[in-house]
Every structure is written in C-alpha cells, then in structure tokens.
C-alpha cells in the first residue's frame, strides 16, 4: 500500500464522523467571526445616549450571548466527532498490526527485534492518533478561520487588513524555517528512543547473567550513552521550540500594536470608528489562534508522517498470498490422515551469503505414512532443526517439495497446514498464564472445547501431573513470564501436553526431551505412543534411545540422509549409526 492509499484507507474508516465534524467546524468558525460584528455595533452605540441606541445596544449584546451559547454546543460536537476518529483509527491499526505480525512468516520476525515492534505499536501509534484526530480538527479549524476572518476584516478596512498581514508573513517565514529543522530532529529522536527501548529490552532479558557476572557498571555505561544521545536530541528540539516557534504566537501582539497605531491614525482621519478597531482587535486574536495551532498541526503532521512510515514498515510486508487462502471444511476433512511425502527437498537460508551460502538440506526424499512412527537421528549442524522447520512450513519453501495427501503444502495456508501438523519445539514458549491455560493454548482455534479432564489426562501422559499437584494451586498455578517458575524439563513436558491435547494428524517432536532424564523420556514416549496410535509421529533426536522403537529411522548427516531403516537394520548397515549407538551404549556398560 502506498502512503497516500494508507492515509485514505484509514480516513474512510470514519468518513461520516469526519463529514459531520467538518460541518460543525464550519459553523463554529462562522459564529466566531459573526460575534465580533455584534460587539462592534454595540461599542459604537456606547457614545450615543438616545433610547433607541440603548435598545439597539441591548439587542446586540443579546445576540453576542445567544450566538456564544450556540457556538459552545456545536463546538462540543465538532471536537467529539473529529477527535474520536483518532482513537478509533488507533485501535483499528493496533488490531491490524497485531493481525499482520501474527501471520508474517519467520523471515520477517528474524529481521525485527520484538522491542522495536513494540516501540512502533506503543509510540508511533500516538503520532498516528494525533494525525487522525487533533490534526484533522485543527486542519479544518485553521482552514475555515484563515479564510473567513480576513474576509470579515476586509469588509471593515481593506488597507488595515493588508498592513496587518505584514507581521504574520514575517513570523511565518521564521516559523517554517524552524519547522523544517524540527521535522528532521523529531525523526532522529524517534530512532534514538527506539534504540534505547531495544537496548533496555535486551539487557532486561539477560538480567541474571548481568547480575551474576557483575556487569552492572558496563551495562549502566551503555545505557547512559544511549540515554545521553536521546537527551541531546530532546534538548535540540526544545531549543527550537522555545526560541523560534513562539514567533507566530507573538505575531498576534505585533498585529495589535499595528492596529492601534495605524487604526488610530485612520480613526483620527474619521475613516474608522472605535467599534471597528475593537472588532479588528478581536479578529487579530481569531487570526492568532489558528496560527498558533498551525505550529501544532505542523508538528502533528510531521510526527504522523514519520509514524506512518514506521507502521508501514510492518504493514508493507505482505502475508504470503497462499496463507490467505483457507480450505473448505470438505477439502479439509478429505485430507485428514494423509501421507506426508517429501520429494527432493533442498534448502538453504536466504540471507546467508558467500561461503556460508551452503545447502543445509540436500535432496531429501522420504515419506511418513498415516500412523507411521518415524525417527530422524542427527548430530548438531546436521540440519535436523532446519528439516523440522521446513516440514511445518516455518521457513519459506519453494513449491514441489513437500506434499500432504498429494497436495503441495506451500499451496495451502500455513494455518490450514498446521491444523494437520503439530510441532513440539526445542524451545517451548509459555505465556504468563496458568498451567491449564498454557496447555489449552490453541484449542479454541481448533473449534473444540477442552475440559479439565482432558487437561489432567495429557498432563499425566507427559509426566507433569505429579509436579503440577505439588504446586500450590495445581493446574491453576501461574507459570510466570516465559514460564520462569518452571524448570527446563517441566517446560518441555508442558509443551508436550499442549501438543497432545487436541488431535492432529502428524506430531513432530524436535529434540524435545533433552532436559528430562531417561526414565521420564521413556515413560513419556510410551504414553505418547499410546495416545496417538492412529496418528503419525516424527521424532527428531541426537539420542538413539529415543528412536529405537520407531518403525523407520532416517540418519541425517550434513543435510543428507545417509541411511534409513529400522534400529536393527541400521545397526547392521550404517557405521555412523552403530558408532553413535555404541558411544552411548558404552557408557551404560561401564556404569552398570
């Protein structure tokens, strides 16, 4: 979306509100210039003492008061209907951004630190809110005030109107010079604020290490440096704002002096009345206010533009079009319990360059039949995790490599694909909620309600049940941020429980039992086998023990499948497999 399309898109969101506001703003501004006219008439009647003039004076005063009351009411409406859209747009954008961030693939999230994204949503949306709210209001206020007021002034005295323009023109030139400088500074400041935010976020997440290694001083110095850069920029802005920008405000007072001097001269020549000078003085205020607001709107505008750029840096990342296609229920159920077929799968990371640009996966082909249990053995760097991230389509793939029931998975939306495949990752992420809510995570999506019985059952299967019962509040225990209250093994077992809660066709376990001991590992695997009898299972591990009972084992080394077969077959045929097994077996013998 281009910037102008973006602006228009969100303007249209509140079009009726805006239209009504424009009408109200016009009426308010019209009344604003009408009222001084009645004041002028009243003042000019002050020097006469006839009964008729007294009546006329009273009538004019009544007009002033009545119109003022009407103006109050309409002004309330004008402000509500022009400021509310700012808030509504802010809320809509927040949801839109969240929606987009949730759906953007891994390639996007690797580029943007979460601190930066949060700063955009928290800080930049303020700029956009002001742009769509107060910015809109002031734009039309200024537009109407600056067009109506001079006309009313002109009617009184064209010459005086012309001369009054002089201080305004001079002030405007100075103001705009300052404004241009400010524009650049505001952009700079926003970036520095983002830097600070990212840096703090980073240190806060490593707080334990920082404390234990006594790095407080170093870290404080780093923060001090970034903080100082922010401060410098803030004060540069303050300097311009205090020394240059008020010039427009003062232009009003200079105008008053001009009106009194020059107007006085005309008065002495009987070209003007004292009432007209009074009205002129009132108009000078009406000109000054919008001019002051011009400064405000200029700031709002420039911040809005910067913020829109920031927000667009997220929103211009399109969700892959295939992810927007959703399958029909019929198609969905027809693909249930299908076979996973991997054909000549090769992968290399797109941002790797030069020497590093090697194929991480080379020409892999295998299948996982419905209900089959397949193991993948590989050491670090063999491409295990990359394979998992290809299979679940976390990484962006070329077409024609992975098929589910004959359908290319890259041609279906990721969301649909993941209703078939469930991945239990090495680094499970937990929300700071209760254990029960964490287990139930994602259930609503599947359109199924999980009752507490199910939760109990899967907790038992994943051998977490006992631990949970020892917690004070059972499965209502809060796990803390990122599950800090749980140990690594507990987290892994919780994520297994999470995956087992709702049925899926293929479960992928990516080295998930690394932080639990062997007995627990075996019990869990046994439980998983029982629970998912009809479902396919793919276990990735560097431990032979976890794979021994699989129907089929693939041995992955440097991105290639160097052997495949059952445990017994591989012991015969594959020396790498045998050596690994023996290395791990050897320890057992000496231990026993």
């Amino acid at each position, binding site marked *: 979306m281009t910037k102008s399309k973006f602006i228009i898109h969100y303007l249209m969101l509140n079009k009726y509100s805006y239209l009504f506001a424009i009408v109200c703003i016009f009426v308010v501004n019209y009344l604003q210039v009408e009222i001084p006219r009645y004041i002028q008439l009243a003042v000019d009647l002050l020097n006469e003492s006839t009964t008729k003039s007294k009546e006329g004076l009273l009538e004019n005063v009544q007009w002033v008061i009545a119109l003022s009351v009407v103006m109050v009411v309409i002004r309330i409406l004008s402000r509500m209907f022009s400021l509310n859209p700012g808030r509504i747009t802010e809320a809509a954008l927040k949801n839109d951004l969240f929606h987009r961030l949730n759906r953007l693939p891994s390639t996007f999230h690797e580029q943007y630190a979460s601190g930066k994204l949060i700063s955009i949503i928290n800080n930049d949306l303020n700029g956009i809110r002001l742009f769509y709210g107060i910015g809109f209001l002031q734009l039309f206020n200024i537009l109407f005030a600056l067009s109506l007021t001079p006309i009313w002034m002109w009617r009184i005295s064209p010459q005086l109107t012309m001369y009054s323009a002089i201080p305004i023109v001079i002030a405007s030139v100075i103001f705009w010079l300052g404004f241009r400088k400010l524009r650049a500074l505001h952009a700079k400041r926003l970036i520095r604020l983002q830097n600070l935010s990212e840096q703090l976020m980073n240190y806060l*997440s490593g707080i334990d290490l920082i404390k234990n290694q006594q790095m407080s001083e170093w870290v*404080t110095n780093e923060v001090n440096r970034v903080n100082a850069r922010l401060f410098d920029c803030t*004060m540069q802005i303050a300097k311009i704002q205090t020394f240059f920008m008020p010039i427009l405000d003062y232009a009003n007072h200079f105008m008053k002096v001009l009106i009194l001097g020059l107007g006085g001269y005309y008065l002495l020549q009987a070209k003007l009345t004292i009432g007209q000078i009074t009205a002129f003085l009132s108009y000078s205020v009406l000109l000054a206010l919008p001019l002051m607001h011009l400064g405000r709107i200029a700031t709002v505008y420039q911040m809005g533009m910067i913020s829109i750029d920031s927000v667009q840096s997220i929103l211009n990342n399109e969700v892959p079009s295939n992810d927007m296609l959703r399958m029909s229920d019929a198609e969905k159920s027809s693909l249930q319990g299908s076979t996973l077929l991997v054909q000549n799968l090769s992968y290399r990371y797109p941002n790797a360059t030069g020497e590093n640009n090697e194929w991480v996966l080379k020409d892999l082909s295998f299948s996982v039949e419905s209900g089959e249990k397949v193991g993948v053995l590989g050491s670090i760097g063999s491409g295990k995790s990359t394979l998992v991230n290809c299979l679940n389509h976390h990484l962006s793939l070329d077409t024609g490599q992975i098929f589910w029931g004959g359908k290319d998975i890259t041609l279906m939306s990721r969301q649909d694909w993941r209703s078939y495949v469930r991945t239990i990752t090495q680094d499970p992420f937990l929300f700071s909620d209760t254990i029960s809510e964490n287990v139930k995570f994602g259930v609503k999506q599947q359109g199924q309600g999980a009752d507490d019985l199910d939760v109990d059952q899967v907790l038992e299967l994943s051998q977490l049940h006992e631990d949970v019962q020892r917690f004070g509040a059972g499965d209502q225990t809060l796990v803390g941020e990122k599950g*800090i209250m749980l140990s690594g093994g507990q987290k892994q077992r919780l994520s297994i429980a999470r995956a087992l809660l709702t049925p899926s066709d293929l479960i992928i376990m990516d080295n998930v039992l690394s932080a639990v001991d062997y007995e627990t590992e075996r019990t869990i695997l046994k439980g998983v086998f029982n629970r998912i009898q009809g479902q396919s299972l793919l276990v990735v591990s560097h431990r032979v023990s976890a794979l021994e009972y699989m129907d089929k084992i693939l041995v992955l080394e440097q991105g290639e499948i160097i052997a495949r077969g059952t445990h017994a077959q591989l012991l015969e045929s594959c020396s790498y497999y045998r050596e690994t097994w023996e290395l791990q077996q050897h*320890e057992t013998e000496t231990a026993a």
Partner: protein
Amino acid sequence: MIKSPDLQYLKHFFHYASRYKKTAVIGLLMMPISVAANLLFPWLVIQVIDEHLTPGKYAGLMVLITFMLVVLVVNYIADAFYTYCLRLTGQKAVFDMRMALFERILKLPRTYYDKTPTGVTLSRLTSDLEVIGESFVLGVLSLVKDSINTLAVLIFMFFINWQLAMLILLVFPPVLMLTQYVRNRLREMYAITRSSLAKGTGFLQECLLGVKTVQLYGAEEEVESKYHGYTEDFLRAQLKTNKYDATLFSIITGITSITIGLIIWYGSGKVLAGVVSLGVLIAFINTLEKVFVPLRDFTSQIASIQRSFAAFEHIEELFVEGLEEDGRTLLPPETLKDKLINFESLEFKNVRFRYGGKGPYVLDDVSFKLNKGQQLALVGTTGSGKSTIIRIMSKTYMDYEGSILLNGIELSSIPKETMLHLFSLMQQDVFLFEQNIHFNISLGVDEISDEAVVDAAEYVYAHDFILGLPSQYQFELKNSGSNLSAGQAQLISFARSVAQGGQVMMLDEATSSVDSITESLIQKAIGRLFEEKTVIAIAHRLSTIRHSDQILVLNQGKIVEQGSHQELLAMKGVYSGLLTDDANIADD
C-alpha cells in the same frame, strides 16, 4: 487541585531536579520580567485609546506605539529563557531518573522479575519517563506561568476598575467547579487507560516473543481475540475522555464571548456616566483572553499533568520495590574482603527454601559440605530442587531457612558483590550480548587478554567454529544471538564461563542439546575442569557424575542419597536404580 498523595510521587522527581538548581533559578528569574511586560501591554492600550484616540490627539502616539513594541520584545525573550531553562532542568532530571531507575532495576531481586513481565519494566523506563518529560514538565511549566499571569492580570484589572473586575470574577466559580468535576472524571479514565495499555503491551510482547509458537499452534485468532479485548477497553475509556475534554474546552472558550457581552452591557451605563473610560472597556475586552485562554489551557495542562501522575505512580512502584539487599543485615564488605579472596568451603546445614516465602518447600532439610578442589554432582528428576540449590548459592534467591556457610561466613550476611567473583555460572538459558564474540566471552573485562579469550574458546572446542565465522572473534551477534545455532550459543557461554575464571564452576545442564560428538569433546574439557577446579554440576552425564567426590541424589527437595559414585552404587538404592534400571539412562 492536586492531592497530597500525588505530591508524594513528585518527591523523587524534585530530588533529581534539585541537582540543577542553578539553571532552574535563571529560568525562574525571567518570570517577573515576563509578568511585568504582560501587564504593561494592556496599560499602554488604555493610554493609546484614552489619551490619543478618543480625544483625537496624534502627537505622542508613535512614542507609545514604539514603547509597546519594546515591551513585546522583552516579553518574548524572557518567556523563551524561562521555558528553555526549566525544560532543561526537567529533562536533566528525567535523564538522571532513568539512570537511577535502571541501576535500581539491576539490584532488584529475582522475585521481582518472576512476577513482573519485562514489558512492564521496559515501559517504566521508556514510555512512563517520556510522559514525565513531556506531559509533566511542559504541563507544569505552562501551568505555573499561566496561573501567575492570570492572577497578575486579575489584580491589575481590580486596580483599574474593580466593578468590571468583579463581574469577571462572577464567572469564575462555575468554571472552576466544572473544571474540578471533569478533572475527577478524567483521572478515573486515565487509570483505566494506563492499566489496559500496560496489559495490552505485556500481552503483545509475549505474543511477539512467542510468535513461532502462536503460528505453529495455529493460535493466531485465539491470541487476537484476547488482544482485541484489551484494545477495546482502552478505546472505550479514551472515547469517554474525549467527551469530557470536548465539553470543558468548548464551554470555557464560549465563556469569553459571553463575558464580553456582559461587560459591554454592564459597562455601557458606566461609560455613559463617565465612570469608566472607553479605553478601559476595550482593554478589558482585549485582556479577557489573557484570563480565559489560560483557564481553558489549564484543563489540557491538568490533563497532561494528570497523565503524568499515573506515570509517576508507576515509577514510584519501582522506587519502593524492595532491593535485593534491603532489610538484610549485611557484614561490611571491608571486613570480609580478606576472607573471600579464595574459595575455601561451602556448607549447607538443614537448609529449607520455598519461593516467595509461601507454598510448598522446594528444598527441605538439605545438608552437605563442599571443600576447595572438590566436585559435587546434583542428581535427580526435574523439579527435584537441583537448580534451586545453585540459585541459592549465587544469591539469586535469598530468604532460605537454616544455615549456609561460605568460607565459614553465613551466606545471608555476605553482600552479593563481595562473593560473586568466586562463582562462574553457566545457566540453562544462554544470554548473549549484541556485541562481538570476543566481548561475549570476555564480557568486557580488561584483564582478560585476547589470548585468554582464544584459550577459553579452545578449551571448550569452540575455537574451530568461531574461525569459520565471517569475521571470527569480531563476529557481531544480532538479536540475542539468533545468528548462531543453539549449540554454538552454548559453546560461547561455556567459553565465557571458562574465561571468567571463577573458582567454583557451576554447571547447570550445560550441554543438554549438544550432539554426541561435540559432547564427547566437551566432556574432556569438563574432565580437565574437574581436575583443576571446584565444581558443582547439575548433570545427567555419567562421566560428570562418576568423577565427582560427592553426589547428592535429590527427590522433591530432599536429599535421598549422598556419597561417592562407588558408595552410592553399593547402597543399591535410588542412585544405582537410576543407573542400572535402563540402558538408556547413561547415553547422554
């Protein structure tokens, strides 16, 4: 207008601002000049009209006009310096507060982080301080200036003509009452907006950190509906705020013209009777904006100050949050220095511990002793309390019951900074700085030479893979080390522990996700460590366990068996069961 608890919150701000008294005083000195110029102007207007325009006398008019111009210029300069100097003071105070808060945050106990999402702490340091720097400082500056000016103008008006001034004063009470009412409503709204914003931000952050999990579980819509709830709450409160804002603003703007009408109506009789001159009447009409415009701006100034109070409240929470070493009687570091140069021994005597002082005990009656040069292995199922023991030793968690003696001194009475150099901790979660590899190993300690960094890397067999990186030891890590693999990150953190050279190595499930080949290399390195250093290890690896002088078998926070490898095997209890039960156990 401002309640006393609010003022409480400000004391920290003024404490930091008072460091820049000089700048503030210069700014404040500009104030009387500005006020005087502000009053001189309407007085000159009266002179122009009554002395020259009404009687039709031209001579001397231009002198008065020139004088008016001079008054304006002086006013401009005084105003600018007032605002600039005080803003500078405010910004410097905010700068210092941010640093003070950050330093304080570094001293908060682990329990604070357990209960507070990082996003909340982050928004204290960024958006809350932003609000104070902008809303509060600017709000107070204009509020003070406007109040003094308004008061001065009112006094001036009484001086010129008390009847007309009284008339203006009549309008004040209803306006002030309205302001007060709206102020209270707005305050309620701001509390709601701040809290729904904080909740939304916290949740947003979690979803971003866990975006992979969200996507792999197809939970996009589930988290969205929750997030929409927060946004909706925030929006509703904001719309109400707008309504109050609009009403107040419009009424106060309208009051000016209504009052002008009243003044002319009332003043007309006086002018005719010759009591009030035309100049005074016109000056009054023109000065009204100086009374009412500030009165209107008060609301927005108060609104922004109000916003800042919520921020102050948050900041205050951080200032009163108990520090790690608060309320603990610590021995003075000087007396300890000599005793803590080298590690001698560590003894647990009947130690019990539970998180936050409530709930079940995660450690129950744990006793053991570790002497210099010995190795201790902690064995047990997950959740048995192994990690807790290490966290208590490093003083990450305090408040244990029983007694822990480090070199014979009670651990709870030792200031953390005097003992941390003894320990080198390898945690489960690897944290990497966004600096180069060299820094991540040396952690910026000057005494660790380049050779030492390389040595440490070689020691853990990380050297080879580092040489394979584009700029080797200068390779810059991004995004908390996302441009390294998990195994590589662990090797770096391992090298870091070695380079930091603590006398007691604490290994916490260090190599759990390293493959067999790499792991066998690391085992050799650990073997070397075991010969040279004092080690406490949480380990599943048989080699680690076997070479330990002492093994603690833990179950649900209790030590169930204790002794050397051979002794425990001979017992034929839990430990030997763990080993012989299944062939799988020892492959790790």
